[in-house]
């Protein structure tokens, strides 16, 4: 039988067998202050835990100095693979490529720099052993500036509301999960950051563990205005990737009906003005508003139709359920 072709070389087919207990996926960028220290600390911890491991350093060439540092580490470290991407893709894509190459039963992701004490990681393993599928880090004693802390807290509060998942620090890059959790649903685009939310939505058991941040790290002061826009869009994405997205017409259709309805109300008011008060309405901008509302309503509904069409024509790819087990 012919082997199935993979669509792009980046998304290699992961062998289903677990070769290692843990795959540690590390994103290499300029914030990775010390690749050697990251490696040795985590490797030491995993050895102490008695778990076999592999390291995957995913490097998208952000920093040439880092490239040589990782190469030097590769020469001496054991069980370390480097995955080099041809150009900068950002953390989400790099992480996902890392996942697709991982051969461990568990995947541990580390952000660009070790924000936490390595000893904190063992708490996450304890949680996994309790039977959870994904354990998310929750950075306490934040070393961020006050402003960053406030806006991060607000963001996470909104995520909890929108996603209905009880998590406090979804953006924490310290995550430990069973590989099956990422194999069962498509992680695309920037979705990686919502991994815990997506996993919880699919019925995986998600927990979080408080991890202390290392004091000595001096993080950059202010995220910039762009982050607000991005986070706002993140929230919109979260809303629209929920389950009701399987029926876009229900959403866009109701929106359309509401818009058309309010347009009707406005225009009926104008008709009333015209025929009861006998005033001319042909010069009133309100008439434009009423008509515009109706037109936008019609467009919203037609976007719902397009959404349904996209869903159905691509329904082979829709995973509307996840099977845990088949017996008999």
């Amino acid at each position, binding site marked *: 039988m012919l082997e199935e072709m993979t669509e792009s070389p980046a998304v290699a087919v992961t062998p289903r067998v677990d070769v290692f207990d843990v795959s540690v996926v590390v994103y290499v960028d300029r914030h990775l202050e010390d690749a050697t220290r990251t490696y040795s600390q985590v490797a030491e911890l995993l050895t102490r835990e008695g778990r076999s491991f592999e390291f995957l350093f995913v490097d998208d060439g952000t920093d040439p100095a880092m490239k040589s540092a990782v190469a030097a580490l590769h020469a001496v470290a054991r069980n370390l693979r480097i995955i080099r991407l041809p150009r900068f893709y950002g953390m989400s894509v790099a992480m996902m490529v890392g996942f697709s190459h991982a051969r461990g039963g568990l995947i541990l992701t580390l952000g660009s720099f070790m924000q936490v004490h390595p000893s904190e990681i063992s708490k996450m393993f304890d949680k996994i052993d309790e039977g959870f599928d994904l354990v998310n880090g929750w950075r306490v004693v934040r070393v961020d500036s006050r402003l960053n802390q406030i806006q991060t807290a607000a963001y996470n509060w909104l995520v909890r509301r929108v996603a209905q998942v009880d998590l406090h620090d979804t953006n924490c890059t310290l995550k430990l999960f069973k590989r099956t959790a990422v194999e069962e649903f498509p992680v695309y685009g920037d979705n990686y950051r919502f991994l815990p939310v997506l996993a919880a939505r*699919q*019925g*995986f058991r998600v927990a979080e563990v408080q991890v202390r941040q290392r004091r000595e790290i001096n993080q950059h002061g202010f995220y910039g205005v762009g982050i607000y826009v991005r986070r706002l869009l993140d929230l919109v994405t979260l809303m629209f990737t929920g389950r009701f997205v*399987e*029926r876009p*017409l*229900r959403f866009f*259709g*109701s929106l359309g009906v509401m818009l058309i309805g309010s347009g009707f109300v406005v225009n009926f008011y104008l008709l009333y003005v015209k025929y009861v008060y006998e005033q*001319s*309405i*042909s*010069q*009133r*901008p309100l*008439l*434009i508003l009423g*008509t*515009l509302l109706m*037109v936008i309503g*019609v*467009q919203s509904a*037609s976007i719902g*139709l*397009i959404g*349904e*069409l*996209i*869903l*159905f*024509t*691509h*329904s*082979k*790819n*829709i995973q*509307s*359920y*996840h*099977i*845990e*087990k*088949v*017996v*008999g």
Partner: protein
Amino acid sequence: MSKAPALSIVVPLYNEEECAENLFATIQREADKLGKSYEIVFVDDGSSDRTFHICEGLAAAHSELRVVKFRQNYGQTPAMSAGFQASRGEIIITMDGDLQNNPADMHKLLAKMDQGFDVVSGWRHERKDDFLTRTLPSRIANWLISTFTGVRLHDYGCSLKAYKSRFLKPIRFYSDMHRFFPAIASSLTGARTAEIPVSHFPRKTGKSKYGLSRIFLVIADLMTILLITRFLRKPMYWFAILGFPFLVLGAVLLVFSISQYSFSSEKSVIVPSISFLVLGTAFHFLLTGILAEYIVSTGETDGKSIIAVKTIPMAEGRG
């Protein structure tokens, strides 16, 4: 069981620990009478009680039972869909997991199927439910679905149905589609549908999903089914039809305002503006139609590839 059975009985279960065993025994007893090889596929839709545990025990003791366990509760359509994909029989019979349907009616469905139909739906013609809250809304819904899809059935909501599996397998079902399976199968894969009266027991626990308040959702769902069953084969044409009234209205307004500007002293700015807006909407539909053509032509599930075609091979030694 290595050989594929002739018949697959698909039953979604959600928190049915009390009647799962009884259900299995009843189905088994009635299926044995049919004189066909069969399998029973239970889909545990993420029950929070002991349903799966009980089913697992039954499956260990009876080789004809398969159990598919969902990670969480997804609803009727995904459960049915997973059941379809897991079943191996040429004929698939579906029914409710709460014994509202009578498994003894299975032979009636099969007898009707033998008359040359591909989908046979049950019709609970003497409903044991409250008229105002359940029977009336469901009558309205059935009438709407029948009228819009052109597949006339009295009781779309009845779970007891029989399908030839080749008319179901090419279609992927998602969201809340289970009510429309016969309509979708009829228009997409080309199934011939029929219905027969079946017996019906009142629901013991739980609430119906389609009350009067949900009639709006039925309409939205209906639009979707309409889209799938009609638009899929010529999207441009249907979007053009949707845009046509706007074209006419816009043109009328435009002619009106041109004549106003030519002959009348009252010159309105608003009326021509509105005519542009309405004409713009007609244009929007045209563009949407083009977009729809792109989508359908690049999608994997188009209108042709899923028709359940039967090819009759060339007779040997001729031609």
